[in-house]
């Protein structure tokens, strides 16, 4: 088989690949969801072994609410996931650890800045909370969760602002 034969054989497959597969409308990403895990403590934040500080605006926001007010905060992890139209979505903010998982799905078609989500919080591979909430780019959902190393974990679920084209 010479070179021309190979090209004739392979070319149709190569050309067919991008357009041939039927696009699944259920996989259409309606938005992007940020799930973050914060470590909040009145003790020594370094026991978390995380050096990642929170943005000043987030710290101010957390400290303004009595139940979320702690002396120090650290970010333990973040996971940014697309919000698929017809599929359940899982965020694993602590990287390879599955100690904290968040399952979410769209309950209505989101707008550019807001989404109504069905949300489940899983801790230690066990579902501990199921709820529904409207999250926006400005108004996240904070879940004050389990205690750990003298502090407490706060799970934040928010809608990521849509990226501007060209930026």
């Amino acid at each position: 088989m010479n070179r021309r034969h190979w090209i004739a054989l392979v070319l149709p497959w190569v050309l067919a690949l991008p357009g041939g597969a039927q696009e699944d409308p259920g996989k259409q990403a309606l938005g992007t969801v940020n799930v973050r895990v914060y470590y909040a403590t009145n003790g020594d934040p370094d026991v978390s072994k995380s050096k990642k500080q929170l943005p000043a605006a987030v710290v101010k926001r957390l400290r303004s609410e009595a139940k979320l007010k702690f002396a120090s905060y650290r970010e333990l992890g973040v996971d940014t996931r697309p919000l698929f139209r017809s599929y359940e979505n899982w965020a694993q903010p602590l990287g390879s650890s599955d100690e904290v998982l968040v399952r979410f799905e769209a309950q209505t078609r989101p707008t550019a800045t807001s989404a109504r989500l069905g949300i489940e919080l899983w801790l230690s591979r066990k579902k501990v909370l199921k709820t529904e909430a409207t999250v926006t780019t400005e108004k996240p959902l904070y879940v004050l969760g389990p205690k750990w190393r003298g502090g407490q974990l706060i799970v934040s679920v928010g809608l990521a602002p849509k990226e501007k084209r060209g930026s």
Partner: protein
Amino acid sequence: MNTTPDDVMLALWLDDELEGDEFARVEAWAADHPEQLAAREENRRWRKQMAVLVPASEEPPYPDFFNSRIRREIAESAPVETVARGRKVTWWRAVWMPTAAVAGMALTFWVGTRVPQTQTAGRVAVTTPAPPAISPALYTPDGEVKADYFSSSKAGATVIVLDGVAAIPDDMDFSNTAAIDTPADSDLTASHDQPADSQ
């Protein structure tokens, strides 16, 4: 030869589901039965109307928190109904309703000055119960865990406080999964530990 189609064949023809010889046979028979041709036309018109009215795709319903969603929908639709009713104001209502309202307010004020303060507070609490607050649906499969929801205007966030959830063992280490500052991130962040605690 009997060319009259049976009911099944006729139903298929009415729905334009027949093809080939079967279609030709029923079509030839129908040429002498104008009422059947009219019925088929009516059927076609109806299908066209349905295609226009029924959307090609629809958001799938979701069954989660069915009852709470019904309560929320009722609560959200209540003010709309009030506005709609308010539009049908007849002339006598326009005249007498404000008068009656003012008289009622004056009477209430006068009665209020006659009743001792302690009793007033009690009566108000009994006669005007606050409408039930509509909280979002919260479900905690573990009976030991309680979830408290509130919307915090100060924090600009929705907050859920979990009580009774098992603590994560202290020997669980997230250091290898914890976020690492990148140059871009460090531009956005700043240390906000309180001095007393950072020691």
